[in-house]
């Protein structure tokens, strides 16, 4: 309310500044919207394509939205519907009687009017399309690649390793944050340096050992390493543990609590946001994991996680663009939904690991 009076009292200069502010808001927000539109366009493409029929995708002149060529039932027979130009207007009429120079149509909105004569070659006409969403593509993709199995495997893998990664990283981070250990700084740097070590350099002997133990083809080579704590996770948790005041530990210590009890009763309850962030990191990492399962589960399709299963599906059905898009989208649903609910904790974690290092 006071804004208008304010404008009235102020000099024209301030008014122009306000106008400029509004204009730049519109321009910058518009730019952001435009970039976002282009950025998410492939996703819209994926959704739309997943709902199309096989034939629509490659047909020239088909609309961009999921549709099929319209048909009209007239006197017990089915006829194709065309777009007929009459007096500069397009009418969606069903072609009943084809002719070289003259064809006969019926208007689906007014069939009682009977046949309409139209002069011209019906071959030149465009087909009329009607919206037709193939929700069945999702069911088809779901069944063809046995999604319940893949999802089950992935969920199993992601939950077990998330538990392992969070608990081991929390223990190690507690060790780094709270105890005086000789050469602790060196150990910490060593731990961080493993983050940038290319995985390939340890892969072959590790594979060989698992192979000797006859465990290649099982999930164990992928699950067990998660229980030995990973650098980024430890780093994030240590940073967080350092912010918890030591007074609490010390008070508990006087009450006779040992280090494990302090860890469980003081550190863990205080660090729920950081622990959530690490859990989310690892969960998404596991959901996305490809190279490890590809190598250790090769030839065991009943154990595949979703990423490897999706690749195998793509190799078999590379012509069915709609099914591949449907399958890809289904594989993305769970991480995206979790992200929407937990984005705050998650993004904070990303920032802590990314900025402070």
């Amino acid at each position, binding site marked *: 309310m006071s804004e208008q009076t304010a404008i009235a009292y102020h000099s024209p200069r301030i008014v122009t500044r306000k106008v400029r*502010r509004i204009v730049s808001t519109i*321009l*910058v*927000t518009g730019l*952001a919207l435009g970039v*976002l539109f282009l*950025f998410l*366009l492939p*996703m819209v*493409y*994926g959704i739309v394509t997943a709902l199309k029929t096989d034939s629509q*995708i490659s047909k020239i002149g088909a609309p*961009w939205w999921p549709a099929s060529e319209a048909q009209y039932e007239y006197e017990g027979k089915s006829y194709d519907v065309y777009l007929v130009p009459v007096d500069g207007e397009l009418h969606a009429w069903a072609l009943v009687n084809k002719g070289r120079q003259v064809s006969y149509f019926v208007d689906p909105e007014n069939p009682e009017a009977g046949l309409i004569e139209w002069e011209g070659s019906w071959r030149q006409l465009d087909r009329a399309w009607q919206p037709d969403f193939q929700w069945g593509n999702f069911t088809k993709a779901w069944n063809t690649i046995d999604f319940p199995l893949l999802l089950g495997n992935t969920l199993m893998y992601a939950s077990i390793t998330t538990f392992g990664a969070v608990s*081991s990283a929390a*223990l*190690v981070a*507690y*060790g*780094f944050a*709270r*105890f*005086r*250990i000789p050469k602790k700084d060196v*150990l910490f740097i*060593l*731990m961080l340096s493993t983050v*940038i*070590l*290319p995985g*390939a*350099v*340890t*892969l*072959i*002997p590790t594979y*060989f050992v698992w192979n*000797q133990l006859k465990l290649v083809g099982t999930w164990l080579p992928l699950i067990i390493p998660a229980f*030995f*704590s990973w650098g980024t996770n430890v780093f994030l948790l240590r940073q967080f543990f350092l912010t918890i005041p030591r007074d609490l530990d010390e*008070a508990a210590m006087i009450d006779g609590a040992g*280090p494990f009890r302090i*860890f469980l009763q003081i550190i863990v309850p205080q660090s729920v946001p950081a622990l959530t962030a690490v859990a989310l990191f690892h969960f998404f990492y596991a*959901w996305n994991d*490809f190279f490890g399962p590809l190598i250790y589960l090769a030839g065991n399709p009943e154990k595949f996680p979703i990423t490897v299963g*999706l690749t195998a599906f*793509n190799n078999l059905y590379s012509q069915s*663009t709609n099914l*591949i*898009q449907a399958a*890809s989208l289904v*594989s*993305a649903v769970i991480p*995206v939904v979790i992200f*929407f609910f937990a*984005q705050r904790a998650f*993004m904070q974690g*990303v*920032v802590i690991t*990314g*900025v402070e290092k």
Partner: protein
Amino acid sequence: MTAHSKLTVKQDKTRRKMSPLQKRETRWGLVFLSPWIIGFVALYVLPMLASFYFSLLNFNPAVPDQAQFIGFENWRRALFLDEEVRLSFVRTLRFSAISLPIGLLFALFLAILLNSKNVIGKNVFRTLFYMPSMIPLVATVLIWNGVLNEQTGWINVLIERLTGIQATGINGLRWLADPRLVYYAYTMFGLWGVGPAMIIFLAGLQGVPTELYEAAEIDGANWFRRLIHITFPMITPVIFYQLVLGVIGALQYFLAPFVLNRGTGFPEGMTRFYMVYFYKQSFTFFNMGYGATLAWLMFIVALILTIILFGTSKYWVYYAGEEKS
């Protein structure tokens, strides 16, 4: 009271030889570090050493008894005889030289855009720009594979509708089949993973003290000059960190060429990157001795690149008032 006296006792003894109390503390500390120490030895140190030993063998895991010690023969082959090692490495570098700068600049562009005080609904934008980073990479690659399809993909259809240039069809933009375009297509897949870098940059931008901008504004510096002379230097640590991770990640680039064409290198071998070649040697031909050599070479290259990056960092990375440890 008691707490206080206990503390002083502890502090007095830190300088001397380890007291029983501190020994106990160290022991407990090592107990908590043990998952990492065991993992570090069993999953990093020993496999790395073993990997080096493997690189001196002619070795197939199917017939481990027939392993032969051949000295540095694998190394000689990788460094001097096998052209594909050099070629795949050059391809990896060429692709990184395109995708890394574009990816980083895009992340920085989004961060600056969303940090602007003139944007309405920042949080919504941030979430939506982050969202595709959550999609499994395999799905991302397959979705982009569709949208970049030369005939039916929307990118070409859109280019054709907007500019009138023929983009679809055999003479159009064959994103994934034209050797000149394929690295740009792969770079586009990568843009969907912009999320983490974007919000790390955003946090970096929000950490720039506002006094600096105010002072510059009084001095009459325009938006662009403030960007170049304040924003950029202040977030160089973040750029540096992203660059190190990006280079290491680029060396190991594998998924897209494997998912799209099973590592055949289509088109014209352009996508047979170093990691793809490593995978082929190690897990298709099971030449694990040679594979271990390739892995060690990658490690050495990664190490050299990291050292170079750290070496250059003192010339361009700005650490506000703090010594780098």
